[in-house]
């Protein structure tokens, strides 16, 4: 099953989203801040990263840039999760190196659709 890294500082968001993803059959690891997210991404062999953009230590924008800059994690798909439906956030996320973008509150089906588009086809 696809291995997902969820980088999210908010405990309830983390709890909720990870549980919902695990029920859908994903393997989910978690990091609590941007710095840990970057380290874990390097350690880990993930198929996809879900990145909250407002994080302590280093924020999601910077964490994404660092993940993109490292050769071993350059190609891992990243979906940015932001709390604000601000005009320009989408462009900003894509520019920082994210492959896609979703806003909170998370609509699980919508997010799963975006994830499926970025993950390798099952059995491939």
């Amino acid at each position, binding site marked *: 099953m696809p291995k997902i890294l969820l980088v999210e500082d908010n405990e*309830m968001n983390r709890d909720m989203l990870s*549980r919902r993803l695990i*029920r859908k059959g994903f393997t989910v690891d978690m990091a609590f801040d941007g710095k840990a997210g970057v380290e874990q991404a390097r350690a880990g062999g993930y198929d996809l990263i879900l990145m909250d953009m407002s994080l*302590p230590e280093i924020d999601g924008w910077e964490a994404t840039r660092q993940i993109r800059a490292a050769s071993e994690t350059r190609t891992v798909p990243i979906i940015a999760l932001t*709390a604000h439906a601000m005009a320009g956030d989408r462009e900003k996320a894509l520019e920082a190196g994210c492959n896609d973008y979703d806003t909170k509150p998370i609509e699980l089906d919508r997010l799963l659709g975006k994830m499926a588009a970025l993950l390798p086809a099952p059995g491939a």
Partner: protein
Amino acid sequence: MSHSAPGSNPVAALRHDLRTPVNHIVGYAEMLLEDLEGDRDADRRKALEAALAAARDALKLISLVLAPTRDAVEPAEVSGLYRKLEDPQRRILDAVHALLAAAGEVPSPTFAEDLRKIEAAAARLVPAEPGPAAPAAASGVAAARGKARVLVVDDEAGNRDLLARRLQREGYSVVSAAGGREALEVVAREPVDVVLLDVMMPDLDGLAVLQRLKAEPASRDLPVIMISALDDLSAIASCIEAGALDYLPKPFEPVILRARLAASLAEKRLRDQERDLVRALGVVTAAATAVEAAAYQGGQLADLAQRPDAVGRLARVMDRMATEVGAREASLRNRLDRLRTEIGVARQTREVVVQSDEDGLGAGETFAGRYRIEAVLGRGGMGTVYRARDTELDETVAIKTLRPELVVDDESRERFKDEIRLTRRITHRNVVRTHDFGEAKGIWYITMEFVEGLTVRQLLDARGTLGVESALAIGSQLAESLGVAHATGVIHRDIKPQNLLLDPEGVLKVMDFGVARLATGTAARHTQAGLIVGTPAYMSPEQLTGEEVDARSDLYSVGVVLFELLTGRLPLEGATVMALFAKVLSEDPPRPGSVVTGVPPALDDLVAQLLAKRPEDRVGSATILLERLQALA
């Protein structure tokens, strides 16, 4: 979660603080709904759906009042929003309580626990008692941020509980720690606005905790108020020396507690704002240095530019200006580099200049008493161009001798003199300077600035086409020179690649301003002599038919030149001059983009417009043309 709020925009911070619990409610409610099955759970499903609907209503209310487009909000609007949120909050809590009270088998082991999470999130939606946590000194920010969060560190459970309850009653949000290590963990893990720290604790005491907090950049500015018995003055003194902001004697006096907390929070907010401003200005200053060093990266200020305050405005303006300047400079440099390369390549393929001219002046000969002829530079319909040494001024000049048929009568000679007089007024880096007009040995001649370089004709012959970049570089310099000439009252009348020189730096020099005037004046009266002057392929329809021409005729010629630079061929071609005449007068030329690929549509449009048959359909002036070419660069 003040640390995760974007920038220092209080509306965004409050929106974030309010949306976060609602997002939690939505997420947990949806998750619990997924667990429910069919009819057996119909009532539960209904209750969860009611909670979900209420949460969505709350989101709508929050987005409406705290719209992302706003950067300021009245306190009255905030309290109004809180009042409106009470309804969805009540609906959510009602649903949760009904679910918790309902008997029956639970759908999942964590069902009740998850419902409690929804309950907790709903409780955070409306502050229990908004107000006391917002000291008057900084009410704007405090009110916008919601409750301040206090960390109470005390090893005695009784003290901890007492303080926590009192603070909660005052409207603070409280987190407690039973010891020093736990306190450091809390600070590292979650945002805290102020710490109440007991001095006497086993293991890690208050002073040690304080020192560690002050040693970490992330917690250095966190206000810490020591809690201590009054007989412990020396310990309090050590703590204040170590950076504690204040102290609170036991037993607690509510009035003092309230005052010290409010004061420390107000100070923290001011310090946060100051630090944020200093950091922001540092970023802007660094960007300014980068602009100066031509190392500015577009979008470098994007984060700051989102701020609603004056710094944000400064960043937006500066980012836009610097990005534009940088792009234009880079594009110009790029284009000049390419031109330089083109010239270098063409120069290698260039024929050595003819050293003598059997019909005209010979190398080494002195002409008009002061010019020593050095080489023939070219021959055209009007005459021959020589490179010569002006022995009087000791500089190299170009001399153009005019065919005798062109200067037969006094009238055309006088008009030509007038034209040369006007032309001499044009001083511009893209215009070859005209020096003199005179006669010697029966030969009329013009002396001009000598430019070392190649004509665009030579480049085209060597390279076929010059491409979009070079076309834009040549076109904008040409437009610039025409703008100056037209403003002086001079129309060129013979713009063509042969008259466009590029110096080794890629700077375009336009030759023969006004010279064609001589030809148009006399040619009409000397057609029987079989004289063909000018270059029909570059002439406008009105010029070909002998009508009065104005500046817009030159713009047509620029259109032909641009077409040729882009495609390597002329827009309209005829086997004979008459066939060409007929086409120029009646046929629409193709668009450059239909001949070669890679021409930007806007440039295609521009060339088509320059080649319009009617002058009034063309680009209005050389200056407008220049702007449009620059916009394409």
